[in-house]
């Protein structure tokens, strides 16, 4: 399978990365090189093989459903580019 310029632009939008026409053209070539490389996986007979979900056999750990952390709003917003009263500030999303 290979991607065309339109697909690259669509994927860039899905990934929320702005691309110029020139970027998209370069990426089309690069992505097709990589997709060409991974194509060989189709040779492998995977009938009856379960996809891996966990590399080491482990049971999901459980813990008591109690509050163990919190009350650190100031820490959480400390690195944000724009905040007000412990809220993250973003451009208007709803009119």
């Amino acid at each position, binding site marked *: 399978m290979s991607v065309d310029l339109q697909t690259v632009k669509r994927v860039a939008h899905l990934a*929320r990365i*702005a691309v110029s026409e020139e970027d998209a053209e370069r990426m089309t070539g690069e992505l097709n090189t990589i997709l060409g490389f991974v194509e060989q996986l*189709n040779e492998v007979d995977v009938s009856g093989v379960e996809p891996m979900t966990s*590399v080491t056999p482990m049971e999901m750990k459980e813990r008591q459903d109690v509050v163990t952390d919190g009350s650190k709003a100031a820490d959480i917003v400390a*690195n944000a580019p724009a905040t007000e009263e412990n809220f993250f500030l973003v451009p208007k999303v709803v009119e």
Partner: protein
Amino acid sequence: MSDLTHLTISEARAKLRGKEISAAEITEAYLSAIESANPVLNAYVAVTADKAREMAKASDARLGKGEGGALEGIPLGIKDLFATEGVHTQACSHVLDDFKPRYESTVTANLWADGAVMLGKLNMDEFAMGSSNETSYYGPVINPWRRSRLDTVVMPTTHQGDGGFVSAGGTKTARTLDNAQLVPGGSSGGSASAVAAFLCAGATATDTGGSIRQPAAFTGTVGIKPTYGRCSRWGVVAFASSLDQAGPIARDVRDAAILLKSMASSDPKDTTSVDRPVPDYEAVIGKPIKGMKVGIPKEYRVDGMPEDIEALWQKGIAWLKDAGAEIVDISLPHTKYALPAYYIVAPAEASSNLARYDGVRYGLRVPGKDIVEMYEKTRAAGFGREVKRRIMIGTYVLSAGYYDAYYLQAQKVRTLIKRDFENVFAAGVDVILTPATPSAAFGVADEDMNSDPVKMYLNDIFTVTVNMAGLPGISVPAGLDGKGLPLGLQLIGRPFDEETLFQTAHVIEQAAGKFQPEKWW
């Protein structure tokens, strides 16, 4: 002072405990080595001199009371991927500009609890994506190793002062260092370069596809990627969560064992962290390997592999045989599919993990006319080319209609790769010996590698299988190639059997000797 930087961790530990040296002295020695070397090698992206001095002072106080921890007063470098409270933690990406976490990663917290001293944060490929440390926003790291050539020099007839001797003109061979700058490998290039150039006693690193072992091999250092789950991933900036593992890079096998003992733990904050006690890895060093079964996988003999590497592998086999190990030929039939499967699984996980860099909560923000444009502009400006490439691949393979063809297929192949290893271990093989990398260190801005992303990816061909199967792997220096550059061998072990790796790697180290670059920086 400078020779203090040449002590191994075990030597420094003995001298610190014996009060022959102080933590303050050894810390100052490293700080001054960094000051003079870093403008050339670019291994550190942030030096925390004040913090280092404070920590050293506290270590000296504890040592004075005979209370020192396992790493008391040992100065370490920390890869920029580990969250360190109040200190530069940016995964060497522009998108994390000025990020200073309000928390400490579990691995680094374990090191500080054992008394280690932080010298600063080490350069790396952006978000650990790269094999040459050239994708860093902070520029490439330079390998302290350079190629050299052997010249036959005609010795002039010399008179050496009064009472000196007169030597008749003869010939001798001398190594001449080449000026070309080489990469230290990646993504933990800063860690490897700093350890090899004596800019820290040891370093933390991480390995998703080979990012500890390949740079260790390129710099003549020892690097171990432990079993998935051995070191907590809490506070380590995520790249591909099912593959990422932290581990040390050190100057010898014993030092790597000492560091891993402190880094590893069970951590309730990481649900994939394993509930097993951490063994005393150092205790196995020096134990004989007589009767151990060492597997040699035929699939690791790849086309176009340099003769030097094949010869090194044969030497490794001979050393282990001499030490009493039984050598057996094995087959890991799905080896060649590990790298293509990795280039689906890792980018898919990365595209999801890196979705959080949106200009809202931390780091860079580039304004836009609305929130979507802000996201898109921020991410376009904040991520470098390699990172964007991987996010794009990951987004594509996870997008509607392609998930089964790519991601599901890759995860099935991953099951088969792991099964290959399970079969040979079930047949009684204790450890597997392979080359660590398909070549020695290459040049900075290598045209071939930079024009074709897949060529760069092939660096990880021998290491990536281990991540795909979640196994432990160690890279140990085993010799120099014809151009005087270090080469490494890799040992792969059963899950949570890091002890066998240290034990066997030490046998190789004893036979091969240790390697250090000639100082030019």
